[in-house]
């Protein structure tokens, strides 16, 4: 009996060992697939960035992501004559920005960080802890011990970090061969949106799943202040802008005036220049959906607001 059990355990150990070798081979093959297909993933972009130093890094959520759609980042670089890396993440709040910035600074250097302020991203853990814990965020992140250490060290990202190290979600990613381009960038960026009040309201409900909770906002603002302090401590300049939002959407944003006043106090305390550009180029024809600039809108915004702000901030 004992011999039989021992033989079984021995075979089981061999089975596991061979399985681990096969898994390692699949892992390596998957890293090659990531290298071939990843384009927009921010961790991939940081690891493979061609330059050591950038003039600007843009942080924020989806309203900043449009600045990097298609050739927009190249256009912005041409207009400013600067090297720019867009690290904004759709649905990414300040905690996501902090992680990306930490990872970026572990490999590169930057002169100025431009933070695109979206009030919704300060009001819900979905856009902060929730987004950080979403393994899809790392599904196209190539393996990098530096990133692994960052993720595992942080209690919020520990589980996702272990998953990243093991590679399960990356190997299991059903979109492994699909182009790494956001659906909006691929399909809707050239369109013009015709406003529908019901869709506007649904969008607001989506952006503020927990409503406008002042405690969550204050916690997020503390995160932002810590991010600013850490960047300023490294000699990185920090500027903040509010992106264009259609007037009718601005009217729907809950407690927006209070948010503006509170965040202004944070910026004043840290000596950060804050430019409220929410009313610039914010006509309906400049948006491809309820609140995201289309191609014409982005170019208009670059010309009339962002480029002058960037040039002014560095002089």
């Amino acid at each position, binding site marked *: *009996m004992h011999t039989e*059990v021992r*033989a*079984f355990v021995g075979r089981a150990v061999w089975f596991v060992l*061979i399985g681990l070798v*096969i898994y390692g081979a*699949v892992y390596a093959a998957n890293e090659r697939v990531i290298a071939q297909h990843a384009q927009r993933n921010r961790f991939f972009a940081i690891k493979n960035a061609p330059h050591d130093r950038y003039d600007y890094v843009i942080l924020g959520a989806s309203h900043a992501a449009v600045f990097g759609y298609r050739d927009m980042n190249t256009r912005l670089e041409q207009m400013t004559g600067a090297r720019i890396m867009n690290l904004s993440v759709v649905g990414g709040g300040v905690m996501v920005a902090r992680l990306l910035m930490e990872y970026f600074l572990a490999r590169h250097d930057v002169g100025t960080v431009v933070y695109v302020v979206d009030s919704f991203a300060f009001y819900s853990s979905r856009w902060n802890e929730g987004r950080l814990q979403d393994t899809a965020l790392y599904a196209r992140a190539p393996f990098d011990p530096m990133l692994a250490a960052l993720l595992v060290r942080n209690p919020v990202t520990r589980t996702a970090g272990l998953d990243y190290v093991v590679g399960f979600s990356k*190997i*299991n990613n*059903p979109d492994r061969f699909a182009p790494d381009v956001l659906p909006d960038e691929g399909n809707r960026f050239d369109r013009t949106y015709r406003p529908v009040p019901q869709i506007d309201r649904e969008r607001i409900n989506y952006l503020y799943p927990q409503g406008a909770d002042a405690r969550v906002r204050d916690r997020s603002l503390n995160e932002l202040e810590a991010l600013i302090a850490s960047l300023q401590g490294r000699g990185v300049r920090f500027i903040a802008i509010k992106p264009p939002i259609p007037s009718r959407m601005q009217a729907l944003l809950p407690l927006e005036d209070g948010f503006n006043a509170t965040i202004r106090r944070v910026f004043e305390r840290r000596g950060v220049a804050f430019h409220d550009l929410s009313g610039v180029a914010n006509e309906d024809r400049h948006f491809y959906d309820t609140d995201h600039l289309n191609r014409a809108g982005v170019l208009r915004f670059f010309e009339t607001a962002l480029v002058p702000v960037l040039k002014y901030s560095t002089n």
Partner: protein
Amino acid sequence: MLFNSFSFLACFAALVVVYYAIPHRRRWALLLVASLAYYATFSAAYVVLLAGVTLVTYVAGLSLGNASDRRVRNAILASGAGAVLAALAVFKYPGPGIAAIAGLSFYSFSCVSYLADVHGGRLPPVRHIGRFALYVAFFPKLLAGPIERARPFLAQITQAAHFSPGGVTLGLQLVLWGLFKKVVIADRLAPFVERAYGQPSLAPAADLVLATYFFAFQLYCDFSGYSDIAIGSAKVLGFDLMENFRRPYFSTSMREFWSQRWHLSLASWFRDYRYVPLGGSRVPRARHVLNVMAVFMASGIWHGANWTFVVWGGLNGLFTVMSTALTGTNMPRGFIARVLGAVVTFHLVLITWVFFRADTLADAITILTRVAGSAATVVPLTVVRLQTGDVMLSVLLIAVLLGIEGFDEVRPVWSRLTAWPLPLRWAAYYALILSLIVLGTWNLEQFVYLRF
């Protein structure tokens, strides 16, 4: 904690190690504690109800053992089973918007069958409350069966189970196969079905056709996948649970589908505790038809308080009666006739699944009329739809499933595997595990039958 979660797999592995490390006399206690802890991961309140139903059944069983008067015994059976069924009625149909209690339908039927068996003299009452509680709560079968009978299960609790490499291997094979069916096939098909059946009046007719075929395999892979994991994990612990599915879509008649292949533990429960007491087939033909219809209607209502389930039960009853009537005739029995029989039976089952899956009776009728109304165009459109990557992969996986089951129909796949040389056998295991990792949907999709 669902079977298709890593936490379950990890806890199960730890349980197996402890289970075989402790003396046999303590194992029932370990399994009982593990089963209750497992159930409590869904809700602690579920455990309270489980304890209540178990206690009522246990006391009623003991009372039956002590009573000799027939009328008293009948009264004890009626009150014991009545109390269990009353709890089932109250908590299974709690009202709109309130989720039914997972597992209640299944362990209630186990309790009722136990009482019926004790009442019928087929089983002595169990005096050891812990072992009886384990029979009711045994975690592999607790949530969605198989609806195990007391006699074979209780006998296994008392027998000392030694670690059997063969049994453990067979159990793990079943767990692996069940996971493949659930996370690789069923959960891949589920979103397509959900999209089409969620808005049947807006979905293209070709999608409704595909979704109906896909649902047949989603449901089968989901439920039989659950059963395989349940039977497999019990096997690892040295317990044999009853078979629940036997390649149902190879049935050549509706009668065969229900009596020999689909959800066997429920079908045999209804046969033994409803159909046979009603007289079964040893009654005049009209009465027999009524008996069959009564059983299928009861089965429909067991699934939920919705007219869709009533119609589903009624249609199955009707098709089974027709199938039974044809069995006595001189039907051809050659290979082609059997293939044709299987195709016809599968499509009859498909019609019933439309009612089973649709949210409302109106939705089911919309689906059937839209599919029938666009019969001329639906075939080429469905063929076009089949060419999209995800649909093609789904169809390929279904083909793999049917291919393996086809081999299984001739000779059990596991016995074929055992005869293979070790490297080939392991290659098959690795292929299955890799498909789980690469193709599996691990978003903890709930098992369909947990809501029944």
